[in-house]
């Protein structure tokens, strides 16, 4: 009876946390970036998305079982990055990214592609981000988040750090790398000549009170999911690594 009650309470709590609510967070809104920078970020993002699409195609041909994992993580990144979370100590909201977790489970390049799709839908229909700033947002959330999460996880695993700790730190790093990249894009696009460094520091400092606790929360989410997958279906964690080795890709 006690355990049943705990299940019901946990389910209700999960629903309350996951209730969607309109609010905006990290994405750079429409029209903020100057045209030159917007095009530059589009170009850089397009290279990674193109590479990611090739990798996904190869993996789907070789591992048909990769498809449900890709679908699950695509939906997860979309939902997680739509989810505003209040940070009580600051009185503001922001959202986790989910790209660190996606990079661990489906690989960093595939994670970039699912982030790009999620960001495109958000820019088109959810007034979240923007079409002109889509390249910049893909670069920060997709590319920086995925690569930071992946390299942190793989690096720590090679150093024999326990999987749960590696996943936790990877989740934190993915979140913070995303916001650091957003700060860099804003600083480069908005600062007067020579003032980008100062503006970058100022924006990072402004992000910090909200993003430090949120990054830690994202670390716990990543750790929880990776530990769950390890206990329930450890071969899924091997899939990403196996696919990388067989595809001859180093990152």
């Amino acid at each position: 009876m006690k355990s049943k009650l705990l299940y019901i309470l946990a389910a209700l709590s999960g629903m309350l946390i996951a209730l969607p609510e309109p609010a905006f967070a990290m994405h750079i809104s429409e029209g903020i970036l100057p045209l030159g920078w917007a095009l530059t970020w589009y170009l850089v993002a397009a290279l990674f998305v193109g590479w990611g699409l090739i990798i996904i195609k190869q993996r789907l041909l070789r591992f048909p079982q990769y498809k449900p994992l890709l679908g699950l993580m695509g939906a997860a990144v979309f939902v997680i990055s739509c989810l505003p979370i209040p940070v009580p100590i600051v009185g503001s909201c922001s959202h986790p990214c989910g790209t660190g977790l996606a990079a661990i489970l489906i690989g960093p390049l595939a994670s970039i592609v699912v982030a790009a799709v999620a960001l495109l839908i958000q820019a088109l229909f959810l007034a979240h981000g923007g079409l002109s700033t889509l390249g910049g947002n893909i670069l920060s959330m997709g590319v920086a988040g995925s690569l930071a999460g992946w390299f942190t996880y793989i690096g720590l695993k090679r150093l024999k750090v326990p999987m749960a700790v590696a996943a936790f730190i990877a989740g934190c790093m993915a979140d913070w790398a995303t916001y650091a990249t957003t700060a860099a894009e804003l600083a480069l696009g908005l600062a007067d000549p020579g003032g980008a460094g100062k503006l970058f520091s100022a924006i990072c400092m402004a992000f910090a009170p909200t993003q430090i606790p949120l990054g830690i929360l994202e670390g716990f989410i990543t750790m929880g999911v990776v530990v769950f997958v390890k206990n329930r279906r450890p071969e899924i964690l091997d899939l990403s690594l196996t696919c990388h080795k067989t595809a001859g890709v180093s990152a």
Partner: protein
Amino acid sequence: MKRFIMLCLIAASCFFLMAPVLSPAAEKSWDGVDVLVVEKYAEAAGRPAREPYINTDQGDLLLFVFAMAGVIGGFTMGYYWRDLFGSKASAVSCLSKK
């Protein structure tokens, strides 16, 4: 482990639900960091955000769109979750198909 995760989930939701009470800035509107940080610096630099090309931020339309996004995203996650974790027999096994 399961019990621990469930207790963490309950504690986390209590913490976030208490947010308006716990916040020292309870009178604030819980703006996202895009408003508090991104748009603040953009406006200061003379490049304020403009309306999205498809502006769903009108009345309750945005609530509807976000609710639909949550439902569709949640359904998709559940669909593939069942494939992957639903039962041992139907779950994906990378190694068995290599």
